[in-house]
């Protein structure tokens, strides 16, 4: 065929749209950019973007629809529930699936890890898994504790709603924290829906935690930090990849200052070689080039470009099929898509290990009335332990 | 479908006709035809009564006039209803009340979760004068039992609720009252009193009334004119005296058609009798 069919499941509406929109826009723009610049070795990508409102059955329905008409070789997916639901289908239909759900157990393609319930051979994602990201933050916190010259056992606490997504890294991260010498406190639950969280902040204050990992998404973190601001909590907050972004910095104001979080790719305007390409990509939907793109957007772009490069490799292997795209991914080693140097983190996939990267970029932010600053504190390398595969 | 029944007598001409229903047809739920051409006139200041067996369409007629039909998926599909020369067939129920027609609905229909006094004040909803409290006293004067009931109206006995429903009409001080079976569930003593009150309101306050009643005797003794309807049609009409002396009326509505009243105990045949239709 002269075109490459690709499906894009986006969450432009529904509960996760706050981060779903920039991420999805990144994918849409990147695909349009690829097509405009010669496609994949001259072949155009024929993509269909469907907003499924974060509703798993609707995602399945869309998948079936695609299977009967579009017949995609790869899919850019989104949330936890739908990705998990599709794991078996895509494995059966041999379709490479790049998702935005960074659950640890999608990283084991063969099921050899004892912690894996079922293998996910066709699943890929770009960036550290939720568990690895949290481990990275804990590792940073351990060094921070030392650097500040404090003594005694630092106290670590996990905060988040009792939902699949916030809970995903909970156990893995707590174990590593213990290993690194933290005292792990019983976790505190706060709602994924933004609401006053002074009660939780008072509990947090009372618990005397030194480091708190916020596992919810950005909109609920805003209210938590604001509430904690009024209560006067001294804890150092850490949060994950979906937990903090440009918008939350602005919406939270001073109360968010000093939070430490994981960034999966370069930020808009960073001085890196690939920024030029990124700005060109952004012009696909913003011809004026004035829009400031969010962190999630950049990750969407990276996820798409890895897929593209996998397709290039697939073609070399005899044709762009889902199976070959998977193999294409698995040939990448410390790989950065050409043109996006410095934007996307070098990633490695193998046939046995789909942990694309274990490098965790740790950032902090500061708000100064109206504008804000994001500073990179460190890049932490989390060990790639075999027993952590799929966990 | 035949034409509406021919009037038996001409109505006295000199009276001003306040309400006039002309040949209306009413359909429920877009399919069920209930009234098949009803015409009746109510002269100003008079008390006109409408009689008929169960299911004849009496309540439907009243609801057509007061506009409440619309709230039951009913519709006037033909004919006009003129009140003071204005067609009100398409006005909303609250407009009609404000124009001066007040209906006392069948089956009491008081607001159960309000007290007696609140119900009475609701009756006076369209009034803005300062005599509302006086009127409440007046209602209590008519029905002393009500005054003792301080709880919610929903706990009143059936008869007490009926009193309250009538009291609400008194409170409204309308120009015209449509009464649907006001004596239902009242003790004999109270039936007499209620009819006394009705006459009183009619005569002394000059309020025009259209009365639907099963107690034909009482009704015709209070009314000046009467209509009898059956199966959605007017089958007989005439002045109260005429109707009181009509043989068929005596037989089916008044009791004691030919001489002595039959005892309820001795009526053997209860099969539907062929009537005017």
């Amino acid at each position, binding site marked *: 065929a002269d075109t490459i069919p690709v499906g894009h499941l986006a969450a432009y509406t529904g509960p996760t749209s706050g981060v779903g929109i920039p991420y999805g826009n990144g994918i849409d723009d990147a695909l349009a950019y690829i097509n405009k610049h010669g496609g994949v070795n001259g072949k155009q990508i024929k993509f269909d973007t469907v907003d499924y409102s974060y509703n798993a059955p609707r995602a399945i329905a869309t998948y079936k629809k695609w299977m009967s008409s579009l017949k995609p070789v790869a899919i850019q997916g989104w949330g936890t529930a739908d990705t998990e639901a599709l794991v078996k289908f895509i494995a059966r239909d041999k379709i490479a699936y790049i998702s935005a759900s960074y659950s640890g157990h999608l990283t084991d393609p063969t099921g050899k890890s004892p912690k894996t319930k079922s293998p996910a051979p066709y699943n890929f994602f770009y960036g550290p898994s939720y568990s690895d990201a949290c481990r990275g933050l804990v590792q940073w916190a351990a060094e921070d504790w030392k650097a500040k010259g404090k003594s005694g056992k630092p106290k670590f606490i996990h905060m988040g709603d009792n939902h699949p997504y916030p809970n995903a890294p909970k156990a893995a991260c707590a174990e590593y924290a213990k290993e690194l010498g933290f005292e792990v406190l019983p976790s505190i639950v706060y709602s994924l829906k933004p609401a006053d969280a002074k009660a939780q902040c008072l509990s947090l204050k009372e618990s005397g935690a030194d480091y708190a990992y916020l596992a919810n998404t950005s909109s609920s973190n805003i209210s938590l930090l604001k509430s904690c601001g009024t209560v006067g909590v001294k804890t150092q907050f850490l949060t994950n990849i979906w937990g903090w972004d440009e918008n939350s910095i602005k919406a939270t104001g001073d109360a968010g200052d000093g939070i430490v979080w994981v960034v999966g790719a370069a930020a808009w305007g960073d001085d890196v070689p690939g920024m030029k390409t990124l700005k060109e990509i952004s012009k696909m939907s913003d011809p004026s080039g004035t829009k400031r793109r969010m962190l999630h957007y950049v990750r969407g772009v990276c996820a798409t470009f890895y897929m593209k490069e996998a397709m290039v490799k697939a073609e070399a292997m005899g044709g762009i099929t889902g199976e070959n795209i998977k193999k294409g991914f698995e040939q990448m080693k410390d790989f950065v898509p050409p043109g996006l140097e410095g934007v996307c983190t070098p990633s490695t996939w193998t046939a046995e290990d789909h942990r694309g990267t274990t490098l965790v970029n740790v950032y902090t932010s500061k708000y100064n009335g109206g504008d804000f600053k994001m500073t990179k504190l460190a890049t932490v390398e989390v060990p790639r332990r075999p027993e952590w595969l799929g966990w | 479908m035949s034409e509406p029944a021919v009037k038996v007598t001409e109505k006295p001409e000199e009276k001003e006709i306040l309400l006039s229903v002309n040949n209306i047809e009413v359909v429920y739920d877009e399919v069920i035809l209930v009234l098949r051409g009803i015409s009746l006139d109510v002269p100003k200041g008079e008390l006109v009564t409408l009689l008929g067996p169960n299911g004849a369409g009496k309540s439907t007629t009243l609801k057509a006039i007061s506009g409440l039909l619309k709230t039951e998926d009913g519709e006037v599909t033909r004919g006009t209803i003129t009140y003071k020369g204005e067609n009100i067939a398409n006005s909303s129920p609250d407009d009609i009340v404000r124009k001066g027609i007040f209906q006392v609905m069948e*089956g009491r229909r008081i607001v159960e979760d309000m007290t007696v006094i609140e119900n009475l004040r609701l009756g006076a909803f369209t009034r803005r004068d300062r005599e509302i409290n006086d009127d409440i006293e007046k209602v209590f004067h008519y029905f002393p039992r009500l005054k003792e009931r301080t709880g919610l109206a929903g706990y009143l006995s*059936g008869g007490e609720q009926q009193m309250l429903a009538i009291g609400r009409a008194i409170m409204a001080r309308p120009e015209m009252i449509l009464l649907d079976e006001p004596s239902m*569930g009242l003790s*004999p003593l109270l039936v007499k009193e209620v009819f*006394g009150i009705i006459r009183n309101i009619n005569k002394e306050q000059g309020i025009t009334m259209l009365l639907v009643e099963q107690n034909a005797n009482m009704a015709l003794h209070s009314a000046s004119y009467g209509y009898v309807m059956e199966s959605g049609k007017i089958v007989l009409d005439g002045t109260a005296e005429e109707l009181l002396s009509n043989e068929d009326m005596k037989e*089916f509505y008044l009791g004691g058609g030919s001489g002595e009243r039959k005892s309820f*105990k001795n009526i053997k045949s209860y099969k539907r009798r062929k009537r005017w239709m």
Partner: protein
Amino acid sequence: MSETAPLLEVRGVSLSFGGVHALTDVSFQVRKGEIFSIIGPNGAGKTSMLNCISGRYQPNQGSIVFKGKELIGLRPNDRCNLGIGRTFQNLALFNHMTVLDNIMVGRHHLLKNNFLTGSIYWLTGARREELRHRAEVEDIIDFLEIAHIRKSVAGTLSYGLRKRVELARAVALRPDLILLDEPMAGMNLEEKEDMARYIIDLNEEWGMTVVMIEHDMGVVMDISHRVMVLDFGKKIAEGLPDEVMADPRVRKAYLGEDDVEDGREARAGEVA
């Protein structure tokens, strides 16, 4: 009336709601096979008395014995198994059901099928049972002459017809004691005559004992065997219709003392 043991015996029943004494120490007996009427002014406690018998209200004091069993403490739905059925003063039909289904509900306690057997209908005999009871219900429908509205939705019927459907539903219970609360309200003379006939037939041919509340003195006088009068929650008289009517207290409280010659007069409503 023969001297059989009373079917229903009410002893010293009192009922009050907050300050309102709806019933005060009321006692009476209803013998098997009689038509027993309760009359009295509005708010005298007649309906409350029926509610105590059928279980809607729990009296504060006293006992109610039916067929030798104490009713106090029994739930209303259990009383129906003992053989008590009733109609209501303010219509209480199932407004969105057809007339037929309304009456079939009356058979509830006689039917044996349940949600399991009912669901598989054809295999469990539920169908046969339903049809058998349906036939009996049709008899009642015929008897009360409501065949033409059998399939009508109850809520759309006129007032008088609904009263009749209520009676049919109560009859469908096949009670030994049927309690009728103003069965003739909202009916004209002819319809009252029909109703009176039905009640007499129920009593004589279907063998039901009837307790009836009614304001129409003509009916009460003509068809009831005994009458009890309540006023302000207290029993002020009980006895044969003629005796009761002659009681001056009754005449004063109920009929309005002055111009009453007899019950019929009151019904006809001659007003000076």
